[in-house]
């Protein structure tokens, strides 16, 4: 991967993960900064431009390693948390909320991976119930693994998740590492899916549906239980196309090797959507969603209809215990 500029926080300049990451990429400049926030947070920068010319920022995360997910966000476990070793992702999905959440599209990697482990272990030990952790909430879990090496590090320390579960959510087909190791029961690779016509229009830079399905199939054949994520399912009407999509998804997959399925509609906090409407002014999907919010018109009714249709389709193939609505 070619990244022209790498910003490095002075305090992680000599961190072993920093050195490893620098060995994995080609770059033009290293720019030392005091804190990643000097580069990542300033307000008057443009997400769309940086999407085209991303830089890499290597930093140290100091606190808030683990956060609770919103209520109802679950794949079957009562207590759910997420963590982000990285912010932003190389894909460019039109509906992605990160565009509304961050000022910068630069890839920010927290290189102190080891500091995530203690809080996870402590949380698991403190709770009697099974906990589930999500990675890939503020990034794509697998897309930049070749650079970050985060998953490799995690797998080598996976005992910390004993008594808990970890979901790695991705649109990437970069599963080299997962293919090479023995399946781990409490590690759930999960793949986000949408119909191909949606992928083409909304998920720029991502692998197509056929590739994603083929990767799921190959991991299932190796013994992995896979999460299938229809979240958000982007709805453009015409039920028959979605009916065809669900058939296409489930016809080749091993249903027994599906850990869980989630279904969610497009939703976004008003503040983020307002920002998106500014940076994607010619996108009618985003503008239409923004109009709905401007008129404080609830899209719940439509969303419920869509979800209920999708649910019906999914339940043709999978038992209802595996389906979760987010």
């Amino acid at each position, binding site marked *: 991967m070619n990244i022209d500029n790498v910003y490095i926080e002075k305090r992680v300049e000599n961190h072993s993960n920093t050195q490893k990451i620098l060995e994995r990429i080609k770059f033009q400049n290293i720019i030392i900064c005091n804190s990643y926030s000097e580069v990542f947070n300033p307000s008057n920068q*443009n997400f769309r431009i940086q999407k085209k010319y*991303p830089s890499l920022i290597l930093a140290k995360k100091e606190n808030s390693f683990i956060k609770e997910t919103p209520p109802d966000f679950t794949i079957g476990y009562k207590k759910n948390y997420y963590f982000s070793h990285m912010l932003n992702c190389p894909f460019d999905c039109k509906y992605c909320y990160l565009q509304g959440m961050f000022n910068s599209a630069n890839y920010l990697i927290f290189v102190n991976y080891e500091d995530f482990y203690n809080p996870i272990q402590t949380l698991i030990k403190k709770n009697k119930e099974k906990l589930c952790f999500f990675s890939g909430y503020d990034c794509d879990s697998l897309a930049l693994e070749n650079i970050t090496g985060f998953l490799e590090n995690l797998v080598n320390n996976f005992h910390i998740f004993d008594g808990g579960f970890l979901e790695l959510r991705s649109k990437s087909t970069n599963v080299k590492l997962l293919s090479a190791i023995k399946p781990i029961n409490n590690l759930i690779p999960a793949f986000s899916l949408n119909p191909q016509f949606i992928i083409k229009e909304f998920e720029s830079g991502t692998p197509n549906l056929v590739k994603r399905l083929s990767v799921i199939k190959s991991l299932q054949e190796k013994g992995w239980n896979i999460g299938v994520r229809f979240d958000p399912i982007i709805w453009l009407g015409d039920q028959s196309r979605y009916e065809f999509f669900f058939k296409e998804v489930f016809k080749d997959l091993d249903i027994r090797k599906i850990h869980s399925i989630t279904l969610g509609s497009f939703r976004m906090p008003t503040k983020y959507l307002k920002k998106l409407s500014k*940076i994607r002014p010619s996108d009618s999907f985003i*503008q239409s969603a923004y109009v709905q919010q401007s008129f404080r018109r609830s899209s719940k009714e439509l969303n419920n209809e869509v979800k209920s249709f999708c649910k019906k389709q999914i339940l043709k193939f999978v038992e209802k215990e595996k389906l979760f609505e987010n």
Partner: protein
Amino acid sequence: MIHFLVATLSEGRPIIDFFDLKISNNDSLFKVYHSAGISLTISGIGKINSAMSVIKTFFDFNKQKNNIWINLGLAGHKNHRIGDLFLVNKIKDSSSNKMYYPFVAHSKLKSIQCITYEKENLDYNESLSEMEASGFFYSANKFSSLELVQVLKIISDNEKESINFNDKHKIYDLIFSNKKKIINLCDSLHKIKENIEDYNLQYINKEFEEIFKGIKFSFTEKQQMKSLLKLYFARYNFLKKDLFNYKENGSFNIQMLKNFLRI
């Protein structure tokens, strides 16, 4: 539009010639030159002058947000060769210790950090030494997205040698010899600017004031109409002005546009 800011007329002269600029005022504070699409302001030396001249330029050229801003000037460095040109990737203000990080990911020009000093600095180091960048950047970034604000410096002195700063011809030649790189940078910044699709936001604001000047809108109605216009322009190129009834109020016209857009 591209706004060049230089500290002295000697540094500005080559830019005036590259782009065939004409003087637009003979202001005693800041001289401004321009042609279609390019302006040049002579700020005077120092970061405060630099910051003030950005503001002056912004107001002189119709307060247009997201124009391209380039601070071009001479700088010292420990060992870089006289005449070498650099894009600045990090600016440190020597008095406040505040850092700024211009966006240089788009350019193949060599980039380097610089320190903005209050006074001339002859204690050369690994950073460029100069006196305007921090004031310029802080100020220009108020009016334009960070990616469009650039600092371009040409080495004029180092530990071993220095140009004669009174020799206008020498300064002219130093800058003129980098003409191609400067023009290439302008071209690449124009391409980057295309990604900021704010033209229709500005257009919508203008159209709104124009079309509905006789119609009363509440604050909420105004926001709603603008969001509908944004959706309209995401779908269509031209606004059909007969969509509206100018004798009716804001709420009526909102409903008309909603019907048209099938919302």
